[in-house]
């Protein structure tokens, strides 16, 4: 059986396995796996089946052409700490596989035009300009950020929860793509999404080694918490109570608001340290009060519903997309269902439903 070595490498890294780990599982030597991955390879049916079983991909997955060519160096990360090589590869592979599924599904729809700008301006200027392009005024809180970005052509993919990684982004064939770790709090993920938007706007074509991550932070700060509004709303004396009151309105963490207050010189470095000391003492550093509901992207699931119905025939979808059924079932739930299927539905005072005339 002829299998594609690149696909074996992709499936192995997707699964977070080393060559030695896959070799142990498949009952061959590590050298054999290395040899398979080095080129297209004629394998015994038994070995191909074993690799498929160990990686939870169907056999036909390994008979496809090469995976999408996403330049690993182009990935922009927002992470807690320095990420390991294997974690990096795992995130990359998840985005690669899911983007491939997304693009297959997208063939069945007229796609959304991309309106994400590129900018060589300073992060603050670029953030202001991007708000304007996205139809946001210069001073109001940003409502459902992912919804706005998807409306403007961003492809948002959910990848599994890896503690050290929040999100990454890249441009692929003219498409702005964001990969977002699952199970993040709403306030944290909104900041991550704004950070990645900063990378997409400011750093197109640059590798992550070339860019200053602080620029994306500055972009995110101005994008989600505009300076003019913060100067009006963060009143002195700044207390934990007064800052906490702003969280539900701006949908960002109390910590982010304190940081922003320091950045804008509303508070001094000493006050900043003191507020963080208080945050720790009341236990809010690790678990903040006021829960911001996490935002879910919609496009992936909407496309799946076009092709495989609503409710989605996940078995058929996973068969055709060459993805493990259980994985596909899990992936689908990470995206927002059609509004009418949500109890209460996504709602807003700013979304007006017109009634039919009697």
């Amino acid at each position, binding site marked *: 059986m002829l299998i594609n070595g690149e696909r074996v490498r992709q499936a192995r890294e997707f699964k977070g396995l080393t060559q030695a780990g896959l070799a142990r599982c498949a009952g061959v030597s590590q050298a054999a796996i290395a040899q398979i991955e080095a080129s297209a390879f004629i394998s015994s049916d038994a070995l191909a089946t074993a690799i498929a079983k160990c990686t939870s991909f169907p056999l036909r997955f390994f008979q496809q052409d090469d995976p999408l060519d996403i330049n690993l160096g182009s990935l922009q990360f927002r992470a807690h700490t320095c990420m390991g090589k294997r974690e990096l590869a795992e995130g990359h592979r998840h985005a690669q596989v899911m983007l491939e599924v997304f693009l297959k599904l997208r063939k*069945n*729809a*007229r*796609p*959304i035009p991309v309106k994400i700008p590129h900018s060589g301006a300073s992060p603050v200027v670029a953030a202001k300009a991007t708000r304007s392009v996205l*139809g946001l005024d210069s001073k109001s809180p940003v*409502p*459902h950020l992912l*919804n*706005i970005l*998807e*409306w403007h052509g961003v492809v948002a993919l959910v990848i599994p929860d890896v503690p050290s990684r929040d999100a990454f982004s890249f441009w692929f064939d003219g498409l702005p793509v964001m990969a977002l770790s699952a199970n993040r709090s*709403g306030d944290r993920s909104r900041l991550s999404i704004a950070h990645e938007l900063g990378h997409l706007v400011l750093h197109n074509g640059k590798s992550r080694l070339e860019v200053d991550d602080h620029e994306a932070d500055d972009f995110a700060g101005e994008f989600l918490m505009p300076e003019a509004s913060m100067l009006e709303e963060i009143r002195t*004396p700044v*207390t*934990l*109570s*007064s800052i*906490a*009151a702003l*969280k*539900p309105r701006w*949908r960002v963490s109390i910590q982010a608001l304190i940081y922003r207050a320091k950045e804008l010189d509303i508070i001094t470095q000493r006050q900043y340290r003191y507020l963080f000391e*208080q945050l720790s*003492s*009341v*236990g*809010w550093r690790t*678990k903040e*009060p*006021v*829960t*911001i*509901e996490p*935002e879910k992207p*919609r*496009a992936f699931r*909407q*496309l799946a519903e*076009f*092709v495989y119905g609503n409710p989605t025939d996940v078995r058929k979808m996973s068969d055709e997309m060459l993805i493990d059924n259980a994985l596909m079932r899990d992936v689908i739930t990470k995206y*927002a269902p*059609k*509004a009418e299927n949500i109890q209460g*539905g*996504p*709602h*807003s*005072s*700013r*979304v007006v439903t017109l009634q039919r005339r009697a």
Partner: protein
Amino acid sequence: MVPTTPNPEHRDPEYWTAELMPLLQEIDTGLRHAVPKAKAFFETYQKKPINRPLLSNLIRYFTLEYLRAHGKEASEEENESDGSWGFEGLSNNGIEIHYRNSRIRLRKGVEAPMPNTHSSLQFYQQVFPEMEDTQIYANLIVLWNLNAKLEYDSDMQLIRTKGLSRNKKEVTYIFRHKVVLTGVDLTRVVESEYSLPSELPMTDTTAKTGTTDAD
């Protein structure tokens, strides 16, 4: 939230306000719950003008009930008798709450009342005779008050006393601080708010007949 022990060395009212904010929110809610009930006693049941001292005591009673029902370690303020004054059963004693290694007395008023017993002076002077047993690290007073219309509108002060002035006619404070509540329900869940329709503007090209959502 895992309770931690407040640092008793802190003399900053903001620190203590933040430390006690969950409790202060609960007290505020308790008072908001208690005041109409206490007023109803006169207006609905007695059909008589409000008796102010009795109103205060009823508010204390209903607040205490509320705090206990919400899991707070609250009781009638301990008997202040030191054996010579015979204050047992004094009706306007406040509520005492044990919260995160602090002992808090909830009293109605605009000033901390003069301590007229040995035990209350100890409380004011931050003396912790039972510290080894009770692990109490700070004594604080929360004062609440009603406005001219006998309504409660979150008028609370947080006080840490130092003792008495030299002439022993005034209470001295380490701090005295008007409590500003966050106005935020700390357990609130903020749902996503859409500014654009949740369905994205993609046209389903697999649909052979029929109408789209846009129709």
